[in-house]
């Protein structure tokens, strides 16, 4: 796509060497590089990318953001935007990355004593090599395509780049039977003007419980910048994980996120993906119910303004029986912005007694805003309950008139109606400070 690319196989070797990685990891990276190199980028002719044009994204025109040896910072030296989030978020512990560098960590001793690990992936390669090797690339990799996506391998292009050239990552490990309910958080502060590539690996062993929030923060406006993220979640039997991916990157960012959870027997995932920032963002959020009785709640919130474009794809892949999954993605769009949602419920022949639901609802605040919604079902089992639905509608003129007739200016009325539209997702976020933060973002955005 560029005449000269900033990316190469040599760069893969260089990054791996700089990070002192073991041989197995280098081999994985090189295999991913081969996949990346041989595949074309998806285009609007690729079914899954029909509404999202990425020809302007400079994947190979930016310097890769590489880690350097910088010292840890004090809390006061953290970027102000991050400090503000820390002050509001009421977390049990947190880690801060600036670019590819872990610069600050604060973890309660009570958790570390029980064996909970929250650190950089490369630190974990030294301290917990077995756990990392056993799980890394297990859920998000170059051959993870499901259903008809397999016919269009270019869907692996960007994740393959992420696997080949990630420069940093997060590792959260929760040992068997260890439970905590106050959230741990990771803040990633990106300066922009670079290609940032990160990876998160979450391993929650049998009967453990964890709450984890990952936030992407940057200056409000940056030159063209690309952020690739992959999140892998491995939930053991009976594990309960609450996971949130919160993207509030500035204008100029292109954000591509792929996450996939493997759910073991009776495991529960409560997932939340919030995409509010970036110029173009795409999140592919997938749960695979591999164990009987597993449960995946998948919530999504987005609100676009200006020329923003946000694209979500969800996959509820039912392999085992008696599992439950529920997707609820709701968004609003104003100005000339666009939102895209596509979702697939796929039931394998063994997935009897599945309950699977998928709902996408969009609110348009301006006649130039647009939302495309493509729900899909592929059902290979016969004794199941599945439903899907989607809707797109402009702001209800009667509701707005009612609010304005009480003296509220139009923008305040719209603010209330956007929150009203998103209310059933917001009320399903039990982490109060997080919900307030998201509501604050919505309020600011209506005013713009």
């Amino acid at each position: 796509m560029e005449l000269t690319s900033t990316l190469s196989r040599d760069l893969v070797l260089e990054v791996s060497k700089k990070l002192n990685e073991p041989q197995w990891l280098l081999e994985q990276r090189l295999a991913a590089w081969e996949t990346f190199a041989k595949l074309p980028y998806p285009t609007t002719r690729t079914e899954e990318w029909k509404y999202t044009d990425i020809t302007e994204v400079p994947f190979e025109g930016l310097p890769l953001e590489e880690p350097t040896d910088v010292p840890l910072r004090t809390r006061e030296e953290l970027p102000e935007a991050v400090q503000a989030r820390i002050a509001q978020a009421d977390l049990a512990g947190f880690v801060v990355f600036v670019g590819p560098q872990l610069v600050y960590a604060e973890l309660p001793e009570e958790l570390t004593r029980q064996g909970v690990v929250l650190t950089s992936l490369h630190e974990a390669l030294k301290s917990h090599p077995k756990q990392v090797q056993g799980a890394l690339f297990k859920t998000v990799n170059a051959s993870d395509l499901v259903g008809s996506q397999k016919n269009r391998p270019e869907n692996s292009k960007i994740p393959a780049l992420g696997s080949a050239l990630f420069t940093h990552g997060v590792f959260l490990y929760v040992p068997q039977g260890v439970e905590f309910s106050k959230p741990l958080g990771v803040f990633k502060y990106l300066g922009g003007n670079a290609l940032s590539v990160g990876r998160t690996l979450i391993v929650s062993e049998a009967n453990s419980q964890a709450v984890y929030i990952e936030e992407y923060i940057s200056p409000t406006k940056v030159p063209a910048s690309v952020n690739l993220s992959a999140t892998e979640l491995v939930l053991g039997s009976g594990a309960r994980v609450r996971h949130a991916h919160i993207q509030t990157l500035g204008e100029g960012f292109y954000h591509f996120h792929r996450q996939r959870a493997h759910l073991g027997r009776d495991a529960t995932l409560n997932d939340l993906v919030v995409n509010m920032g970036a110029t173009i963002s795409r999140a592919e959020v997938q749960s695979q119910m591999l164990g009987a009785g597993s449960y995946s709640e998948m919530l999504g919130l987005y609100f676009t303004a200006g020329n923003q474009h946000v694209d979500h794809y969800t996959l509820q892949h039912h392999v085992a029986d008696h599992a439950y999954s529920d997707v609820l993605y709701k968004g609003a769009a104003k100005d000339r912005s666009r939102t895209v949602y596509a979702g697939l419920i796929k039931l394998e022949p063994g997935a009897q007694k599945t309950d699977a639901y998928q709902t996408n609802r969009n609110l348009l605040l301006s006649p130039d805003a647009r939302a495309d919604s493509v729900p899909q079902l592929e059902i290979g089992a016969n004794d199941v309950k599945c439903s899907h639905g989607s809707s797109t509608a402009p702001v209800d003129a009667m509701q707005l008139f009612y609010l304005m007739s009480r003296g509220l200016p139009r923008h305040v009325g719209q603010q209330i109606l956007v929150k009203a539209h998103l209310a059933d997702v917001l009320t399903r976020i039990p982490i109060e400070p997080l919900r307030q933060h998201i509501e604050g973002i919505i309020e600011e955005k209506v005013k713009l």
Partner: protein
Amino acid sequence: MANQLEIRNLYASIEGGEQILKGVNLVVPRGQVHAIMGPNGAGKSTLGKIIAGDPSYTIEKGEILVDGENIMEMEPDERARKGLFLAFQYPVEVPGVTNANFLRLALQARKGEEVSVMEFYNKLQKALEVLEWDESILTRYLNDGFSGGEKKRNEILQLMVLEPTYAILDETDSGLDIDALKVVAKGVNAMRSPNFAALIITHYQRLLNYIIPDVVHVMVDGRIVTSGGPELALKLEAEGYEWVKELVVTGS
């Protein structure tokens, strides 16, 4: 400055549809309560909504004056700040915002300044007492899941907290049982003062037993065809609307 709500020769139609108001003239001075009665389809509710600024109607001709100022070009929120209030026939449900938060936002918007929590709660307390309602209503989402009667009562709660100068009650009585009707009337009566006027739109005389109007207007086919004292309402209740329809035909 004329202390009154005045409608002059108002013609209006539903957007892209039929003409509903065909030359309405009406003056409601401060300190008075007026009622508009009339058969279904006469245009009573349309008049109320148009005064409040409902965008789904097109005004073809005429003027609406609040204290002498023409408000025709104003957005609904600006009209509210000029002192107008419409109690909706079908109040809209808005999940996600609590009744209390909404009321406080509306009060601040109406006054154009911050309202202290103290002042706000004092107003609320007084209104709740009159309306024989408990505080649990405040933490529920705005009209969300409210019964028909609760919605109507909530309109009156808003009326009492926002204290407009000119209130239009659009069929607030319809669907209310007698106890709820009395409570609603109590709320409106508590508002009566030399600086407050109400325009009560109703199909039935029932509510007017509890809110005694100064003037009763009868509207038929988009026009006020006759006006009188409270006895007019009783006559309509006893004799129906046939005789006023004849007034239209004879053009008097």
